[in-house]
């Protein structure tokens, strides 16, 4: 099987989805001739024409609103927002329309759309290009929030998102776009949504993460073996609805849990997981559930951003502390 980068896997999935289903339409700023600012849509306009791979005016609210109208009319729109920091104008459409159209019409109208956006810091980008505000999206009833952290999962999950009958926000870890490679067979096989992936088995502690932070989380799991600590690592993948069962099953086995996310701590999705474990898994806990997160600050620009993101050291320290508790 060929080795591809994460962004190439996204491109393969988009191409496959468009090939298989004539109703799939890709739209966004610069997605056509230019192939997207990260080249996720490169070559698609040549293959499928400018009607199906559509350069929109510079208007993010419009992109999300168009997706709603297209989806209701039976198209399968995949909108691209260039950076997560530019996604906020779309919130009105996501909250008030995309996520609730099925409910408010009692199933008469549905909204099978995907909105893609890069996620997270670490590429030395300007302001507003490093956001990881996924928790905000997970608070919207009726929406799905998915984030990939490997080329294989990017390919399979994006195909699943496009085929899903409900709206999905699909987040892509920006600093992993070209830094990770994986074997992806372009066979059209989707991966299941709403399921977490146990990417490393272990018995002493559960480390839960998603997106690019999974890289440091895996490195921390490696480092912990020096201490004789066997860490289980979970890639949550779908944040809404999230797979509580896999989390609870793992914590029941290990008795300890550290949640790692790049997003700011307060109200971050780690709090949701910690609350679930407190409610439904307390009896199996041998130590408090802790979080290693971005700080409650604006994501700093390039000079300080490395200090903001959860480092391998911070994760290792938190995991050791959990293992030594009591």
């Amino acid at each position: 099987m060929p080795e591809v980068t994460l962004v190439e896997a996204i491109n393969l999935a988009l191409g496959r989805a468009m090939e298989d289903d004539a109703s799939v339409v890709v739209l966004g700023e610069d997605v056509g001739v230019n192939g997207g600012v990260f080249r996720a849509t490169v070559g698609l306009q040549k293959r499928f024409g400018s009607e199906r791979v559509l350069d929109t005016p510079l208007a993010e609210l419009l992109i999300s609103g168009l997706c709603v109208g297209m989806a209701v009319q039976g198209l399968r729109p995949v909108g691209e927002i260039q950076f997560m920091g530019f996604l906020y104008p779309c919130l009105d459409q996501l909250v008030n329309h995309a996520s609730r159209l099925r409910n408010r019409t009692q199933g008469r109208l549905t909204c099978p759309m995907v909105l893609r956006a890069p996620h997270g810091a670490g590429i030395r980008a300007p302001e507003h290009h490093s956001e990881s505000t996924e928790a905000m999206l997970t608070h919207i009833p009726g929406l799905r929030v998915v984030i990939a952290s490997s080329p294989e999962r990017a390919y399979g999950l994006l195909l699943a998102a496009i085929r899903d009958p409900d709206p999905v926000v699909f987040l892509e870890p920006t600093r992993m776009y070209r830094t990770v490679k994986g074997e992806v067979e372009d066979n059209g096989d989707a991966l299941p949504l709403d399921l977490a992936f146990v990417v490393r088995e272990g018995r002493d502690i559960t480390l839960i993460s998603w997106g690019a932070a999974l890289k440091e989380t895996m490195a921390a799991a490696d480092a912990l073996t020096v201490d004789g600590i066997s860490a289980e690592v979970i890639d949550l993948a779908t944040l809404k609805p999230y797979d509580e069962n896999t989390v609870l099953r793992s914590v029941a086995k290990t008795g300890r849990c550290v949640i790692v996310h790049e997003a700011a701590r307060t109200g971050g999705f780690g709090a949701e997981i910690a609350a679930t474990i407190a409610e439904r898994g307390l009896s199996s806990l041998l130590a408090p559930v802790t979080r290693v997160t971005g700080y409650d600050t604006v994501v700093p620009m390039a000079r300080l951003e490395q200090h903001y993101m959860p480092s391998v050291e911070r994760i290792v320290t938190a995991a050791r502390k959990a293992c030594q508790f009591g």
Partner: protein
Amino acid sequence: MASKWMANEGLPVIAHFEVCHRNYLAPDGSINRPLPVFAADANLLVALYRTMVLLRLFDRKAVALQRTGRLGTYAVSLGQEAVSVGIASAMREEDVLLPSYRDNGALIWRGVKLEEILLFWGGDERGNNFSGPVHDFPFCVPVGSQAPHAAGVAYAFKLRREPRVAVCLFGDGATSKGDVYEAMNFAGIHKLPVVFVAANNQWAISVPLRLQTGAETLAQKAIAAGFTGEQVDGNDVVAVCAAAEEAIAAARDGQGPRFIEAVSYRLGDHTTSDDASRYRSPEEVQAHWKEEPIARLRAYLASQNMWGKTDEEQLAADCHERIEAAVERYLKIASRRPETMFDHLYADLPESYAAQRRELAGGDDA
């Protein structure tokens, strides 16, 4: 207009625009100019008249229901019945309507049952699963946010080469929003089959038009998006119909979008939760009663011997009967079971939310 800040003498004018105003029926029902061909169809004019009267009486009943605690907040169309009824009358079944919350008239014309409208305003989502065209959108509440949907719908029509048109209704306040401009801009670029209609009733709750825009007309906002904007007398249903017919036909014919500003006046409160006497004078409202659309059309129909006193009495009785029967059906509709609030959240309810559903149903997940 030249000023000391505009040294334009001798500079070439590179663009020139006009905005037309359309009116056929004067407030007393007399004719200002030759009527369009469709107006020779007495059945059509009478049908428009009947629907406008039904809407006015239905509104009155809905307010009474709200005042007696049997309906939630409701938005009446008083004074602007000609706009949504007139626009809808020019649509085909296969076209898609994207209405705002004040467009009961368009829904009624398109076959939505009165009890379904009451059910929505009575706080039940099933009212949006209505028996009008299955592809029509439900009322849009966040002002103007349906305009991008209309552009998306129209894009789908164009992509599939379908001769269908999206018709998007909103109020004057919506034209202040980026949503509407973004949608019109996109529609202009791709020459989409969509008609945008601003029901300019002069007031966005308490804010008058002069504080909504510095522009002379709303119609000219289309010019920035690259297509024609027209102003019509929104109290003249013949003018509304004529503008809508032309715009919809042009859009269907591949000539791209149009914008219609229908100038009317909101004679009532914004909704049943509003008291318009706080921000406008009775004299102003009284003056506008002289221009309202129903009396105007009735005067014209009477002058053409298309309508008489017995017709009016019969219509009142018909409307009363229809409305009372609908209210009776509405009041008999039982609430859904609480757990059904989950039933249309997703195509398949994810397991983690299924537990919450069971909790609501009285299960042991609590």
